[in-house]
């Protein structure tokens, strides 16, 4: 088998393989991935909504809260599907149960590589930090 300009073409193919197989190499030899272990609130049993809802739609809920609380009629209380009332607040509600941002929100967000910009302004209240 004769390759014309074989040297250059093989170099190109090696680069191609290097790029496309890099994810496999990067993960090679590492333990199987497991979803992060979250530090759950100790004295509470239920979140605002069901666990499934919270896992996938918490950003949507927060976004709605922000809109309802600050735009619209400035309605500050949210009634969940079970009829329980919560103040619509990132710092005062979410973070009161999920006191440790680093061991909860950030755990997922690091793995999913999401950096919510909320924390540019909102802070995790010192009093709630453990």
């Amino acid at each position, binding site marked *: 088998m004769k390759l*014309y*300009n074989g040297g250059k073409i093989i170099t*190109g*193919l090696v680069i191609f393989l290097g790029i496309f197989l890099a994810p496999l190499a990067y993960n090679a030899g590492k333990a*199987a991935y497991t979803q992060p272990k979250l530090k759950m609130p100790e004295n509470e049993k239920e979140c605002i909504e069901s666990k499934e809802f919270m*896992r996938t*739609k918490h950003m949507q809920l927060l*976004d709605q809260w922000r809109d309802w609380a600050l735009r619209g009629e400035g309605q500050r209380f949210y009634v969940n599907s079970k009829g329980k009332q919560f103040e619509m607040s990132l710092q005062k509600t979410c973070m009161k149960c999920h006191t440790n941002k680093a061991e909860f929100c950030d755990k997922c967000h690091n793995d*999913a*590589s999401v950096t919510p910009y909320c924390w540019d302004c909102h802070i995790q209240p010192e009093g709630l930090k453990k």
Partner: protein
Amino acid sequence: MKAIYSLILVLALVVIATLGAGAAKMQTIFAYCVPGTAFAIFVIGFVAKVIGWAKRPVPFRIPTTGGQQQSLDWIVQNKWDNPSTGPQTAMRMLLEVLTFRSLFRNTKVLLKHDDGKNPIVAYVSAKWLWLFALLFHYSFLVIVVRHMRLFLQPVPQFIVAVEFVDSVLQIYTPIVYQTNLLILAGAGFLLARRLLDAKLRYISLVNDYFPLILILSIALSGMYMRYIAKVDVMAIKDVVMGLTTFKFKAVPASIDVSFFVHISLVSTLLAYFPFSKLMHFGGVFLSPTRNLPNDTRMHHHENPWNNPDIKPHSYEAYEDEFREPMFEAGLPLEKTPEEAA
């Protein structure tokens, strides 16, 4: 019609994935077997295709490229458009791959009229194709890089940075990536161009429409997952990491079917890639008008497909061989039979 066939093909894929992973509960097949196989086909097919090209003899240089070729010292050479050395050619290739200069030269033919109402054929520059092709390709690249967040653990800082830049406008939640919109604009334009321009419609085939519609549906299914279905990203990362570490687990039940539709479409793209026009990804590097320096006056080109058994045959030898019949036919000769004798 051809666009409709392509649309039906893509819709069929969507239906297969929906029924297969949803109703028929074949999540494992759709989560691991299909994408794994497709990736293998992509990598092996790509390499095989390029090796196949490498076996073809390299043609004589094609120096019909824009710009002044190397000439006398006082004539300025256009080094990147008409290179005569290796590094200059590499530069031309780099610019072609990164900035699509060939598309930048795209022109459109117009029929205009001068003052006396005489028709004039005019060629005017047409940059839309270049602009939207550029948007499309770079968006695609950024999107692929961004997806690596699901393939790598821990996520490298570089990918976080790409995501940050891509979502810097901070619109909506989940945050909107600019490339999401740009890829729709880019691919949408490329499709609309084929559908709306009669000349292009005439030369477009199913294998022109199919990849475009496929890529558009991949983008749309991805956006559907993120903004509408709100899939469980953590569970999906679990599955994807299983694929890249070869440590497969049971597929979590919380994963929405739209994920399986999305990866089925991506798998189709990967498996189809080596056999399609999309191979211009590898092919651009092997285009003779881009990768051969214009040095025909500096180097002797040995035509690689010449048969070495066929020796050079000069005109004199030719005349010696056929002098008699040529003379009889009254053809002009360098030497008449008498002179040759």
